[in-house]
């Protein structure tokens, strides 16, 4: 094995350990600080509950919260898949035809900048509720995937494009054997952004168009708890949301690493 010389001159083993331990340590530190601030400042729980209180709320309200988490995660996952498929799909479509690209890109930008609150009522008119929620979540998350994939598809080594042309590659082949593989780092980068956004999208969508009451997601819990001044529960729900976000990001990072580590500069551990 070659020895890796990482930034800060850390050995690869130490690096791997740090990579796991440091974030955990820092999060622990953050929590400790938070507890300290609450204790020393004597901050009442309805302004900022202590981590301990949040944690115990999490435990005591676990049935309610985990049901909500499930709802939100389902929306998130569906939204994310739609964003991934939709973003990549649109980018591919745009890449295949300049005419379509020029024609539709402005609409994609419009979709990105339209505030969900404004269009949720319109969506609710014409779509069944679950579809409206998904549409909202999708709108929030798809654009980064579209933009990054477009960039990636356009960044293909021109010489390789020539090579494919020369060997009579069909459009399909150029797309699947050249452009999409070459765009992988960009696409995966877009997905990393979309992962968090689809969680946000799910929350926003739930607020704007989601069902309320018993079968409702974390967003409803957060709004309701805030309204009812059940701040510990609000924080517990926020905590769940953050954990879910970190998990999604971590999963996408691992995926990205696995797909790129054999070839792309951003992921290979350089041997020196």
């Amino acid at each position, binding site marked *: 094995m070659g020895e890796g010389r990482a930034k800060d001159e850390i050995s690869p083993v130490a690096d791997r350990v740090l990579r796991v331990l440091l974030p955990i340590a820092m999060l622990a530190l953050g929590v400790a600080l938070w507890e300290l601030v609450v204790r020393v400042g004597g901050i009442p729980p309805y302004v900022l509950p202590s981590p301990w209180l949040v944690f115990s709320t999490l435990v005591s309200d676990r049935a309610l919260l985990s049901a909500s988490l499930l709802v939100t995660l389902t929306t998130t996952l569906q939204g994310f898949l739609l964003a991934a498929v939709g973003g990549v799909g649109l980018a591919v479509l745009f890449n295949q035809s300049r005419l379509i690209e020029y024609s539709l890109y402005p609409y994609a930008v419009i979709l990105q900048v339209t505030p969900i609150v404004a269009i949720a009522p319109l969506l609710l008119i014409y779509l069944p509720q679950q579809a409206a929620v998904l549409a909202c979540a999708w709108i929030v998350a798809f654009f980064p995937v579209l933009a990054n994939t477009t960039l990636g598809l356009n960044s293909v080594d021109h*010489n390789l494009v020539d090579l494919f042309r020369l*060997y*009579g*590659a069909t459009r399909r*082949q150029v797309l699947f*054997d050249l452009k999409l*593989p070459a765009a992988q780092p960009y696409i995966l980068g877009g997905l990393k952004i979309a992962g968090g956004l689809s969680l946000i999208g799910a929350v926003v969508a739930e607020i704007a168009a989601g069902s309320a009451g018993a079968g409702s997601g974390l967003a409803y819990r957060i709004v309701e708890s805030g309204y009812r001044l059940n701040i510990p529960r609000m924080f517990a729900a926020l905590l769940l949301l953050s954990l879910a976000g970190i998990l999604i990001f971590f999963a996408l990072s691992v995926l990205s690493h696995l797909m790129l580590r054999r*070839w792309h500069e951003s992921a290979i551990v350089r041997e020196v």
Partner: protein
Amino acid sequence: MIRCDRNVPVGSSKSGTPVVALRGVGKSFANDVVALERLDLDVWSGEFVSLLGPSGCGKSTALRIIAGLSEPTRGKVEWVEAQGAYAAGARRIGFVFQEPTLMPWATVAANVRLPLKLAGLAADAPARVDAALARVGLSGFAQSYPRELSGGMKMRASIARALVTETNLLLMDEPFAALDEITRFRLNNDLLGLWESLGKTVVFVTHSVFESVYLSQRIVVMTRRPGRVFTELSIDAPHPRDERFRTSADYAGYCRRVSEALACASAGTDEAPTGS
């Protein structure tokens, strides 16, 4: 010193019918660089022709124009379509680019398999890929990624890719420049063998006078930029050629003549990019 006779073709072996002809081809780029000017070049069916010329004189550009990867700004490229094998649809061009141009995300084997895959020839692909890799001495690296190869090994992978399908026109842009003499000689012989047995047409760019004489039937020497044909030399030594030819007095004589022609063609300075 050498007396320079310009633009006087020293014999011209017309061994067959022309496949493709560049007629008064010019190529300028947006930055006002005139790469080619009034380039006339016939490529005959089944011949082995080498392009020789100073760095930056437009050899790669000419190959790209022949391959249809680039459009001339002036003049035209004529394909002799009657020649069935070179009809627009049937034409099968192999190209070794000056740079390896491998897909970084694919293994060496996958890179070499590419032309087969694109042509939909999956059936005997593994065997042919193995054979092509063995030919360039990369059998052990089939599952490696391009970044794990040395410079010469990348070029060899690129050569293997060009040889894996049956092409009738092979365009090679300094394919062996990054290889040691031993490997280079072996691949020279391999290429000659392939050419002789399969009757491919080969257009070969090289900077090695020795290599060009050893391989070609005809050598086209180009001038400094803007590139045009300075002179053509036909190498009339019979094929198959081997080490005996390489050590013969004939060979030395040809080499001297080609070197002189190249020296004449390289005289003067390049046109500046703004002087279009």
